[in-house]
């Protein structure tokens, strides 16, 4: 099983909400009782991060934001930060993107515009300001490469040659190339080889980058997987409401895991 590849303590990159969130893998991680995961949002997070935090699988979260989008704050994430149960490493979207781009190129760091004066720059020992070596020698914020141990993502399809179509989510390609191990679940297998299809090829994460592919229909539900399906509003509403309390979350999670899912 694909989730077994993700070891306790791993630095695990996850796509932003509605961009290929691997919910089926997240569910398997929780069922297994994964511990001490160090999550990196790409660059933000939502349902899956809240679920993993609530289930006790997480040591730290690095993200530019964690929320349930239109449903407001991510309740288990917020509660865990307030209780000091997880370490929160705050970022800002363009800095996380820059870190993944550096990781993809195996450069030590990347510069990012702006970001001066904020408390992320003050609090994070891994972000700093350098002088542009070229005229006009202006100060520039730099952030280190993000090199996740593993990324898990869900995509609409893989082809028979093992290429995965992620569509216009270019950051998924960047994140996957930055990661040391790439695990993908897909809705379906497409006959043939999409590399030869010039309309589809730009949206491919090709075989050399991928370690494992598994078939997982509805593998991103309840989050949306454009263009295949939108969010499952009823399921997300029930989560947002239940997860406001510890007891409500535990009950919701038990239903979500089902009778075979006891940790």
């Amino acid at each position, binding site marked *: 099983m694909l989730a077994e590849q993700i070891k306790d303590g791993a630095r695990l990159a996850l796509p932003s909400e509605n961009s290929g969130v691997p919910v089926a893998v997240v569910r398997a991680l929780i069922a297994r009782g994964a511990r001490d995961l160090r999550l990196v949002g790409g660059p933000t997070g939502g349902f899956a991060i809240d679920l993993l935090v609530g289930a006790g699988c997480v040591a730290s979260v690095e993200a530019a934001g*964690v929320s349930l989008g239109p449903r407001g704050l991510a309740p288990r994430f917020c509660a865990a*930060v307030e209780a*000091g149960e997880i370490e929160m490493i705050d970022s*800002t*979207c363009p800095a996380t993107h820059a870190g993944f781009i550096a990781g993809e190129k195996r450069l030590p760091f990347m510069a990012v515009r702006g970001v001066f*004066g904020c408390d992320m720059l003050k609090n994070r020992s891994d972000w700093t300001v350098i002088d542009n070596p070229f005229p006009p020698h202006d100060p520039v914020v730099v952030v280190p490469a993000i090199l996740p141990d593993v990324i898990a993502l869900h995509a609409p399809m893989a082809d028979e040659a093992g290429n995965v179509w992620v569509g216009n989510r270019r950051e998924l390609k960047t994140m996957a190339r930055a990661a040391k191990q790439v695990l993908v679940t897909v809705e379906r297998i497409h006959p043939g080889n999409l590399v030869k299809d010039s309309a589809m090829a730009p949206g491919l994460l090709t075989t050399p980058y991928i370690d494992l592919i598994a078939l997982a229909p509805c593998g991103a539900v309840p989050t949306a997987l454009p263009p295949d399906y939108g969010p499952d509003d009823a399921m997300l509403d029930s989560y947002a409401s239940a997860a406001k309390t510890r007891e409500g979350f535990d009950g919701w999670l038990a239903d979500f895991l089902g009778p075979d899912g006891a940790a």
Partner: protein
Amino acid sequence: MSEYTREEFLIATMSGLFGDGRFMVSGVNSPIPAAAGLLHEHQQPGFCVSIHGDPDRTPFVDGGVEPFDMAAQGRLDTFVFGGVQVDGQANINLVSIGDPKRPKKRFTGSFGAAGLYYLIPNIVLFFPSHSRRSLVQKVDFRSASPQAPEGAFRQGGPKWLLTDLCLFRFDPATGGFELASVHLGQTVAAIRDATGFDFVLPKDVPTTPEPDAATLSRIRGDVRDGLSVAYAQFAKDCIKTPGS
């Protein structure tokens, strides 16, 4: 009964702040900025708003990084930021109340604000619940700040702070706010009482103009229709029906 809703007033007032730029992006959970952008499309030829959650109004094909690159290229002119707190130096907080390591209350996180604060020329800060809890002397966490070292690259920054009570103008030279106008029914004294930071008070403070009939009709027509994909419930609840 008032001739317009609170939201209609804020939409009309905000749209007047969007200036002569060409492109605006409205973010997650931002119905009033999205509506103000749609209204501004009628007031400013060539202006266009991208609305998060409306695929027909999302011209991004290269993933999440593209809007940030676009901002750096100077192709994104207008953006509206909210938050939990704003202070008198235009620092905004989207992260937490109390010590950030062990906060009393944790919120979402800073999203793109820290970078965009230097890149987008026309930034409007929007705090629709004006009180000493949200307009504070010093924010508990700086998610974005205009305070950069000397010589830092800057092609944008905060320009306005719009609340449900008044409008402030940010002065980059002094690094503080000036009261630009008070909304109908408000007084300078009431604004002072509700504001946790000091601001410059000009001799004469005008009243924020009320939306005229043509503007209200536009809001209740094209703008209401334009919100139907991303913010149908908001349009139904907060914008009157055409002709009412």
